[in-house]
């Protein structure tokens, strides 16, 4: 009788957990479909990764119910986890593929790193705010991402030991691009920087380092402003 009770209890827990997982999976798939693919993110690898990463496991507890909504979320310390669409747009911008090595400056919640880690071989990420670093490390470890390497420190100097990188994603506000980061980017590599006040992401800056070592910046617009009167 006692054993039967435990079996029933385990079964019940399994049902509850799996229902919960299903609920989030459903939300996640809808998020990718409606918020990301429908808005023009077409890169298959990116969409696949976004469908897979459990965003709700990387946000603060109070934000779990909002994890798949079409907006940025607060993660504490004046930082936000970007709107899913922006993460998709940024990921697509660096054209990720297997075999690449990417450096991320500003781990934040760890979501961007997780999305990249689903596609590419090695992700190196640096976070300067200690509590965010600790939480992100814990969450990413729990999710089993062994190809994400976290470092607590100042992103200004990059991570020279593992340089050069195929791409660099700078998610922390950057009034200027640190010269060491440009140096650690491979020729032909790409760097992407979102530019906007918290809770907005108005445009992205893409830096392309040409084969000859010269570079070019490109302003990319996730949401293009079309003046009303023009229509």
């Amino acid at each position, binding site marked *: 009788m006692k054993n039967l009770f435990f079996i029933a209890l385990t079964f019940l827990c399994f049902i509850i957990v799996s229902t919960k997982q299903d609920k989030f999976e459903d939300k996640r798939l809808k998020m990718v479909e409606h918020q990301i693919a429908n808005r023009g993110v077409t890169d298959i690898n990116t969409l696949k990764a976004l469908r897979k990463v459990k965003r709700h496991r990387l946000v603060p507890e109070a934000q779990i119910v909002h994890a798949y909504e*079409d*907006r*940025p*979320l*607060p993660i*504490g*310390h*004046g930082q936000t986890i970007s709107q899913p669409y922006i993460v998709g747009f940024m990921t697509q911008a660096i054209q990720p593929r297997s075999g690449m090595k990417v450096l991320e400056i500003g781990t934040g919640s760890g979501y961007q790193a997780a999305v990249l880690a689903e596609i590419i071989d090695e992700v190196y990420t640096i976070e*300067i*705010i*200690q509590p965010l670093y600790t939480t992100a490390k814990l969450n990413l470890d729990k999710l089993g991402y062994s190809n994400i390497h976290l470092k607590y420190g*100042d992103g*200004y100097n990059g991570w020279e030991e593992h340089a050069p990188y195929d791409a660099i994603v700078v998610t922390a*506000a*950057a*009034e*200027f*691009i*640190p*010269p060491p980061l*440009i*140096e650690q980017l491979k020729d032909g590599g790409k760097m992407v920087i979102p*530019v*906007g*006040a*918290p*809770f*907005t*992401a*108005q*445009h992205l*800056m893409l*830096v392309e380092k040409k084969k000859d070592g010269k*570079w*070019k*910046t*490109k*302003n*990319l*617009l996730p*949401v*293009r*402003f*079309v*003046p*009303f*009167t023009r229509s």
Partner: protein
Amino acid sequence: MGISYINRINISIGLLSTSMIAFQLSLMQYLSIVQWHHFAYMIIGIALLGFGAAGTFLAIFKKRLVANLPFSLPLLISISGISMPLSVWLSGQPIFRFDTYLLFVEQSELWKLLLFELLFFVPFFSCALAIGIVFIKFTDKIGQLYFSNLAGSGLGGILIIGLFWLFNPALIPVITGLLAILASFVLLVGHRNPWLIKLNIITLAGCLILAFTDPLNLNISQYKGLSRSLDLPETSVKRSENSPFGWVQYVSSNVIRYAPGLSLSYTGDVPVVDLIFNNADLAGAVLSTPKDSEILDFTTSGAALAIKIPEKVLVLGAGTGVRTHYFSQHDNLQIDHVEPNPIVNKFSSDASKFLGNVTVYSMDARYFLSNSQETYDIISLPDIGEFGGSAGLNAIQENYLLTIDSFSSMYDSLDKDGILTVTVWIDYPYRNPLKLTATFIETLAEKGIDNPGNHLAAIRSWNTITYLLKREEFNPAEIAKLEGFSNRLSFDPLLLPGLADLERNNNNFLEDENLFRMTDSLITGTRTKVYTNYDFNLKPATDDRPYFSQFLKWKNFRHLQDLFGDQSASFFELGYLILVITFIQSLFLAVFLIILPLIFLRRKVNNKLWVLLYFSGIGIGFMFVEIVMIQRFILFLGNPVYSVAAVICFMLVASGIGSWYSSRLKTRLYSIQRITFLIFVIIAVYAFGLPAILNTGMRFSLGIKILYVLILIGIPSFFMGMPFPLGLKYLSENNAKAVPWAWGINGCLSVISASLATIFAIEAGFSIITFLGAAAYLVTMASCFIPAKT
């Protein structure tokens, strides 16, 4: 023989009013530090509705409160005093803590906001209730009592200046609370009820313990610059000082670097800097050595020195002195550094001494310009905007440095071939760069220049644009040097005489080329069309509407929401949205508070329309005029902090004298009509004539300027102090039951007017608000023609 009870009441009301105004202004600073100044407006607006609510409360419970006046009055004053520090302390506790930035993100923040507002409502409500009881009980002495109220408030405006200099922002509410308790003690002298005396003594002791142990913490929003910087490793506050200019903190760091818009061609090291914050917002970077400023040679800000070797440079809004250091590196150069905040000047120069060729002026930039006879080779302005955009938090902040009038004055201070230089952070959708271009064009048009394109140059990096406005046309050699500068550092020219479209978008590619198209439209003469058609307000700011950072056009807000989503659109113009929410909130509450007493007093109040119009007119008129006077005299006196204090003090004391004088007048509607008409005439003249009158005295000495202030503020204020006591007295003689209702209407309308005045200032300008203020007095006058019912 001791002081009579009525005189003690006069002293007590004066002290209470002093403490309340001082508390209100300290609360503005406290909330500006922990949140943003827009939020401060919102909370103060709701808290001040305590005055309106007190009228409503009195209308319903008048009998009981007035009958027990010797007990209820000191009790209410004590509650007001206790709740001043208590409300501030509670506001920092987790259950009440609120964040403006999350208002449009988290629904739970709305409830927290309500709790937050309720906290600060208590001290204002109890204070207003105390004053209201006295006004109602002693209506025959209303002239003197209203004088005590106004004069006390005026002195509060002066007292707070001293408190700001002497104490930490968290300590000031304790001091104002103590002052209110003192007001209660004045009434309790000879009182037989030991319970109240004990309560006061305990509170006094509690406040003193609070003061010495300093447990009031400033829980600053996590989204403010100071909080975000202190989250970084090896970063801490080294110095801190309070003043009426703000709470300045010096933050030392080993990881913060400064190089706004640095060229990607630069391969050297970027200097580590310390930071200075004012009210927890970034005031600027502090360089370790003046030589570190050479990094600016690799930013677009280096454009001016790339084409000109100046002899005399004026650095306006100089902040922490980075631009001053930059120019001072060059030999044979004299620099005037103008920064109004003396603490910022002190902290920055202590950390990194200016060279001998720098003269520091602690004064407002516009004041300096109007009093200086010098001309300069280069005039440098502070950077406009913030990296990534400012979320519209500066939208309702008056900025007299970025108006057409200001640029015109700077243009006149340039040498024949002098250059004005200013750097703008690129925002998206484009706003700041376009409004600045529009301001340049309007300024040049005012100066009679019909080919503005030959006087303007602009160099763009991936995130900044530096504009140069030259008094003479740019010559071919200068154009070639700017092209060379731009190419060398991989920037792109945005504006240069003779520039081809193809040359603009090479190194730093912009996907949305509207920046080029709109800039060209502004320059080639179709700018009025651009103002009308663009989704954002690009019309340049003027001294009458000094809101450079206000871009919102309400009719297009829906379009922005459709494009960017509801939440993101809110962050384009957070400041203005919060102001409008404040207005709507206070409007609903005010209407409720005005209507509520009528349910209880329906049959006891006659001539409701007269009471409503009369006291609404006074409430709106007084507040509109006060707000505009403060703004007009900021430019005249050249110091925003002292101008506000002087105007509040002069205006309230002069109104108090008018109130006192009114007690000699007979309470007849005819005399009230004459007084209000006189006020209408004076204010209507001020609406369009005051700026011209003030201009005549701009270059006079401070002594003569103060005389101007005394006369120009004193005359209307003296008369404006009369209609309220006269109306209240008239009402008490003819319809005593309506007195608390009238007091409540006046309070409610005063509060609504504060936010309404700012909305009008943004949309229509100060002259129009002044005229509306005059019109409000005309409504008061006209209400006296309504036939009285008995």
